[in-house]
């Protein structure tokens, strides 16, 4: 073999084939992906009923009232009444230590304000329909009476049991029954009880704020029967899970709570309870677990089927027709954008969440608080990059305008609901001042008589409507110049952030380098030509 051929072959290997092979190895390594972990949890649907309630004589009696049903229940399930009566579902409050040394308070739906219907207390007839008791119509309700507990609303498996509207948690009676809201068939319902289904929880948790999906945005009636794309967990085509599959419950203590009413980093439900903290089998993606909640990438949009309320402006409420009738106006999608009783709304579906740091603690505007920021923060999630317990979470922020006392600088509890006209409720009489007087009175709060409207906002972390893995957010949703994380400003996000100064300086250096090379090249050519011309 001649030397030339040997050099050629040697060059081919040393300078071309081996270097190219090295690059191929790099590409091969970079393309190695492990399969995400799969899990096979035991679900409540696997539970086998141990008894047939229809055979119990006590459930075959003629029930005069729902209270008698409860008596029958606790006659066998003794002690369960005491369990449920310790919970927030019964008390509508929890003992909570607020962050920033604001002390220990009993807070909950019972006494917190919101920027929907402003607050439940004083509007019991309407709001307490979703209390798990019978007839919390005013402060005289007996929280110590076990027969006031409504077992059926959570354990009815017939989907025929409902509480009547406007009756503070009581089902319809023979006196007030209508075709749409009949007296429940207590024997049928009581003989067909079981573990709560999506329907049981949803009957309240889907309709908070006065209609389907008004409040949460990620909890609505579509979840009763939805596609995998809407909710991979609850869809019958997916895992077909019920609420208590994640919100694990012992002795009526249901895990998980919502930061619309809770404040402390405890008793939470976490994705990793089932999925572990490295479910992707991918170092980079699993590494995000430190700072990014699973929900952030896996709930790219919420309100995927029906719209949710994003803006509620009370200040325009009370406009009536010339002959004194209420007005209802719809937006293009058929959602109310004006109601005389409530004001203007903005609804939207398939909404991209906002993103906030959250370490599991939250502050709340308490009845005794004064306004310190505008917009007023109804609740505030805490956390930051340096907080090792905080993660970036997706949030629905509900904004609006509501009444406040301009003298005392406090948000006003409104009296909205009453059965009849003339009782001073805004929804019947449309009188702002009377509504404020009565609402503040019921809540034992001072009211100066001077009022106006102020902007408020509330943060509702999103946990449901988890998308199938194929629809999880791609990297560039956050790692790009138009990142979704625009509000997260205490962290460097590769792809989103860069030093403008450095990039400009670097580019100038590169341009100057190229210019220098060009000038040098031109000079070389020019001088070369000159030299050869001279020859």
């Amino acid at each position, binding site marked *: 073999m001649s030397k030339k051929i040997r050099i050629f072959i040697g060059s081919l290997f040393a300078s071309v084939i081996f270097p190219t092979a*090295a*690059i191929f*190895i790099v590409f091969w390594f970079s393309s190695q992906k492990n399969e995400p972990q799969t899990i096979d949890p035991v679900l409540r649907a696997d539970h086998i009923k141990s008894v047939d309630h229809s055979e119990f004589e006590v459930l075959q009696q003629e029930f005069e009232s729902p209270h008698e049903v409860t008596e029958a229940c606790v006659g066998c399930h003794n002690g369960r009444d005491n369990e449920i009566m310790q919970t927030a579902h019964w008390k509508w409050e929890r003992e909570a230590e607020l962050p920033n040394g604001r002390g220990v308070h009993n807070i909950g739906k019972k006494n917190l304000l919101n920027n929907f219907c402003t607050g439940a207390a004083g509007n019991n007839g309407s709001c307490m329909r979703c209390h798990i008791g019978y007839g919390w119509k005013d402060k005289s309700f007996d929280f110590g009476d076990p027969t006031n507990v409504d077992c059926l609303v959570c354990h009815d498996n017939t989907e025929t049991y409902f509480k009547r509207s406007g009756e503070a948690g009581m089902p319809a009676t023979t006196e007030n029954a209508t075709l749409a809201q009949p007296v429940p068939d207590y024997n049928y319902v009581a003989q067909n009880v079981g573990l709560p289904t999506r329907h049981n929880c949803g009957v309240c948790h889907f309709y908070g704020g006065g209609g389907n999906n008004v409040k949460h945005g990620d909890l609505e009636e579509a979840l009763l029967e939805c596609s995998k794309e809407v909710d991979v967990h609850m869809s019958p085509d997916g895992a077909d899970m019920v609420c208590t599959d994640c919100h694990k419950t012992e002795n009526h203590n249901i895990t998980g709570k919502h930061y619309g009413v809770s404040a402390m980093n405890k008793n939470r439900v976490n994705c990793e309870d089932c999925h572990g903290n490295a479910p992707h089998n991918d170092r980079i993606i699993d590494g995000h677990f430190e700072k990014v909640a699973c929900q952030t990438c896996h709930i790219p949009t919420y309100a995927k089927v029906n719209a949710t309320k994003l803006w509620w402006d009370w200040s325009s409420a009370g406009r009536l027709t010339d002959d004194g009738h209420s007005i209802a106006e719809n937006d293009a999608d058929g959602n109310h954008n004006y109601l005389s009783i409530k004001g203007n709304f903005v609804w939207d579906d398939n909404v991209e969440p906002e993103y906030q740091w959250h370490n599991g603690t939250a502050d709340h505007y308490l009845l005794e608080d004064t306004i310190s920021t505008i917009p007023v923060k109804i609740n505030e999630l805490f956390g930051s990059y340096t907080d*090792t317990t905080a993660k970036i979470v997706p949030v629905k922020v509900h904004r609006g305008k509501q009444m406040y006392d301009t003298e005392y600088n406090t948000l006003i509890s409104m009296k909205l609901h009453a059965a009849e006209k003339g009782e001073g409720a805004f929804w019947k009489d449309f009188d702002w001042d009377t509504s404020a007087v009565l609402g503040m009175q019921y809540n034992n709060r001072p009211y100066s008589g001077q009022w106006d409207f102020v902007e408020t906002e509330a943060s509702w972390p999103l946990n449901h409507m988890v998308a199938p893995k194929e629809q999880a957010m791609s990297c560039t949703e956050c790692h790009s110049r138009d990142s979704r994380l625009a509000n997260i400003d*205490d962290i*460097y996000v590769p792809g989103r952030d860069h030093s403008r100064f450095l990039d400009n300086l670097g580019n100038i250096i590169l341009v100057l380098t190229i210019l220098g*090379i060009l000038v040098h090249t031109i000079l070389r050519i020019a001088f070369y030509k000159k030299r050869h011309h001279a020859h």
Partner: protein
Amino acid sequence: MINKFYTPYNRFWHWTQMLMVILLSVTGWEIHGTYKFFGYQAAVSIHNAAAWGFIILTIFSMFWMALTGEWKQYLPTMNKMGAQIKFYLSGIFYGEPHPVLKSRHRKLNPLQRMVYFLILMITIPFQIITGLIYMYFHLAKNAIGIEYMRDTAILHTIGAFLLIAFLLVHVYLVTTGHTVWSNIKAMFTGYEKSEEHAELEHQ
């Protein structure tokens, strides 16, 4: 006369390093947010794999330099530095010969020695260290301050700009050999017609 300048390993190192640097640049600027090419996730995977490839190659090359004594060729010297700079600024235009003759044991001119020394001893280790911190900083999540990630990313970007500026000049200077093609040919084959010889032939 034909001289051998570059051993097979030397050439393998050079070309692999070149491909790695190009790959790291292309993926690195995508991660930086400058453009989209591979897709972000792929860019990150490739960048990280190439980074490890680069580190392994660097370790091998350090062994090679240590064992063969090639490291001596990268020691900076001021000897004839002025003449070398003058050559690039004027002599080259007048067709003057290179002030420092290339040989098997003196592949690099004084300016190259200085620049390569800085690249090998400072810029590349700097990029490797900032890159490793960038990749693995979160494993020490509690030990670090708020600006850590930002600082690391900015330092790594500075290194990237320097390396690309070097690459541009380096590629250009390839054409300043005895002929436009002689240097690159030598880097491929390992052999180059020596200048002295070529000068003689020319006459």
